[in-house]
């Protein structure tokens, strides 16, 4: 039993790596145990054999080596210093970390820009929707005035236009409220445009811009055939 424990200590004993207490105990056992003493001899021989196998570097080899080292150092000195520093800086781990950080940054920027783009698109949609209503009102007025100059039967009573409050400028409401107001205005304008189209007084022109979120809806008066002039009444 003691032999097994001592056998484990022998590799350390031959190198002087045991504490004084353990070394004393091992030596005491070895003096009485031939097998363990033999094992110690084997370990010592092995250690000796291992040390003897050291390569022999002769003077010629060493001087050649020194010359090579110095040449390499001179060569490195001729190179710009930043090359070394950059090479040291961009080691593999750092390069991976930098790439990951750059990708993350790009992802964040893309996310924010797309979000901002959505908000801008919503605002412009509301603006675009407000424009035709305004234009149609102006056009309507022109038509009415030109018709008033003509001597013809009284024109059909013009349908009273609704007053849009799209142009009225108000203090900017909080974002959530603004979105609601814009949505309701767009719906309102769409209904009105549909009514106009139904009355066939106006032609609805829709222009789809490059941005799928922006569509220009333009209502303009339907060009009516000029009234048949009565040669008798002309004069």
């Amino acid at each position, binding site marked *: 039993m003691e032999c097994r424990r001592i056998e484990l200590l022998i590799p350390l004993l031959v190198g002087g790596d045991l504490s004084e207490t353990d070394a004393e105990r091992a030596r005491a056992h070895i003096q009485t145990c031939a097998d363990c003493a033999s094992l110690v001899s084997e370990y010592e021989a092995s250690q000796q054999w291992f040390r003897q196998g050291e390569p022999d*570097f002769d003077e010629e080899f060493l001087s050649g080596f020194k010359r090579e080292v110095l040449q390499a150092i001179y060569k490195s000195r001729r190179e710009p210093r930043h090359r070394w520093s950059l090479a040291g800086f961009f080691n593999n781990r750092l390069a991976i970390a930098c790439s990951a950080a750059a990708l993350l940054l790009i992802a964040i920027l893309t996310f924010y820009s797309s979000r901002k783009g959505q908000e801008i698109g919503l605002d412009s949609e509301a603006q675009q929707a407000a424009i035709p209503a305004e234009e149609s009102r102006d056009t309507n007025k022109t038509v009415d005035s030109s018709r008033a100059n003509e001597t013809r039967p009284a024109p059909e009573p013009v349908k009273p236009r609704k007053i849009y409050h799209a142009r009225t400028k108000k203090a900017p409401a909080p974002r959530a409220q603004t979105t609601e107001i814009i949505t309701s205005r767009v719906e309102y304008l769409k209904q009105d445009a549909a009514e106009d189209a139904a009355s066939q007084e106006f032609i609805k022109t829709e222009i789809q811009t490059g941005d799928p979120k922006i569509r220009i809806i333009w209502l303009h008066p339907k060009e009516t055939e000029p009234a048949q002039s009565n040669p008798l009444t002309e004069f």
Partner: protein
Amino acid sequence: MAGEVAEISLMTNSLGMSETARPQDEALRSVLTRAASGDISAFEYIVELYQKRVLSTAWRMLGNREDARDAAQEVFLRTYKYIAGYKLDRDFAGWLYTITLNVCRDHLKKRGRADQVTSLDSELEPGEFDRLACQTDVEAEAIRTQQQALVARAIRTLTKKERAAIVLRDIEGLSTGEVARILGTTQTTVRSHVSSARTKIKQFRDRVLKSGRQG
């Protein structure tokens, strides 16, 4: 200057490897300071002083002369590169060993041999060890070469950590504490690696002897 270098060299030899943790003597400090400030001639003396030790350690770690030569060259290049940041109160030999082991580790990784550990059961030529014993002096060089090859094969049976521990402890003669400091580990771990390495080397030698007797 040559006298100064000779003096340093003698002092280094007399101190032995186990004394590397001691503060550097003034002459060595002076050379290191000059080398740190970019004096090539001072660095040349450092190369002269330590080249054999670095080459030997690299050979033990890598197992052949050419790899050891490349690694040792890289060690001195790195030393030159970083010597400006070296603190004089630190043990220079220990610092150099750390660089050497790191370079050797890089070499092993690069060549895909980091974990290539030869089994103890790998084939041995019959009578390989006996031939070494019965050669005449004329063939001493060949004997030494063969013995080196056998030791290199014995080293290949060790893991990377065992190699570093046994080379520093048994070949370079550093204390367990110094080895632990250089390897960045505890003394208990170093003892464990050293014990395991000694056992494996003994087993390898036993097998060589056995195959020699059978051959």
